[in-house]
């Protein structure tokens, strides 16, 4: 293995409060989708509070929910995101979320066995928005491979 895992952050801007009728289907699907993620190949970790998901957390804006996860590889995350029961809520996302106006998802490599913080995730998204896809912050469309473990990581990376 490469010694690295893939961290992922995506943000979604709610069209209406989570408790509203418009969001009811999304809220109803959450437990099933979270469970699907957990049993998908390559799944490692997801951010959640005591309620079992992360929708109560609003670290960025009041109407923006976060999804922060760790997977073994880009391929396994891609497989879950687009080639599983997760595709259906993705198809319907406009029912629940407004367009973000800027990148809403970022991927980056972390040393295997570590967990990303929300703050770091926010920094990576900002880096993506500023510089476009790079080895430190990238997208499904322009992925970058995990760093070569044989090469010493630069200090502070």
């Amino acid at each position: 293995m490469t010694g690295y895992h893939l961290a992922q952050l995506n943000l979604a801007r709610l069209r209406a409060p989570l408790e509203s009728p418009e969001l009811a289907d999304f809220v109803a699907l959450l437990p099933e989708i979270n469970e699907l993620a957990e049993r998908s190949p390559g799944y490692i970790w997801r951010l959640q509070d005591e309620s079992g998901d992360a929708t109560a957390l609003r670290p960025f804006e009041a109407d923006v929910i976060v999804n922060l996860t760790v997977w073994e590889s880009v391929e396994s995350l891609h497989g879950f995101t687009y080639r599983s029961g997760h595709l259906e809520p993705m198809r319907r996302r406009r029912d629940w979320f407004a367009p973000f106006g800027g990148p809403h998802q970022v991927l980056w490599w972390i040393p295997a066995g570590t967990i990303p913080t929300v703050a770091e995730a926010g920094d990576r998204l900002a880096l993506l928005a500023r510089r476009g896809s790079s080895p430190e912050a990238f997208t499904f469309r322009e992925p970058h491979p995990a760093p070569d473990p044989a090469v010493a990581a630069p200090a502070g990376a």
Partner: protein
Amino acid sequence: MSFEAFGSLREPVRRAVYEHVAASPQPVSRNAVVEALGIGRTLAAFHLDKLVDSGLLETAYAPRAGGPGAGRPAKLYRRSAAEYTLALPPRDYRLLADVLSAAVQQAGAEPAAYAAAREQGERLAGGEVVERLTALGYEPAEDTDGTVRLRNCPFHAMAQAYPPLVCGLNLALLEGLVGDGGHVARLDPGPTGCCVTIACKNNIH
């Protein structure tokens, strides 16, 4: 590259070899081609090699049963994943599709795109569903339980670039196509192929 690929299919036997391999969901051996088309082994090998050279087919190797000493792995052939398009005069609908998809995504207009796709699907309907799906390039194949799986995604490159939009659009298109008859289209992505399956209404539990 495209000219070579298409030119390579001019010869009728070569075309038949290509179509036989392309139609098979699993990679096929030279011997399977020989049996299916009733041609000699040397001729089959000749055409298969030409098709691989022109990029239309690629080789795959099947593991041989048995341990060391069981012999060389079987050489198999399958349709190449490369796309070939030839447009005379030059046309670039892919570029247009990219721009329009980006615009739809940016504007959050997916529901409008799905509605347009459903209408288009209704216009494309008529006659037997599996025949329509074949004509549209989906390569339908019926499963043992009667579910129709679609081996080919006609929008493949766009589905890679804009998965939720294009898969949602495709679902709506097929919903329009199958209409209210005996079939239902639904999202059920597998590791490869189109993300939509068509089920027979009586078979749905």
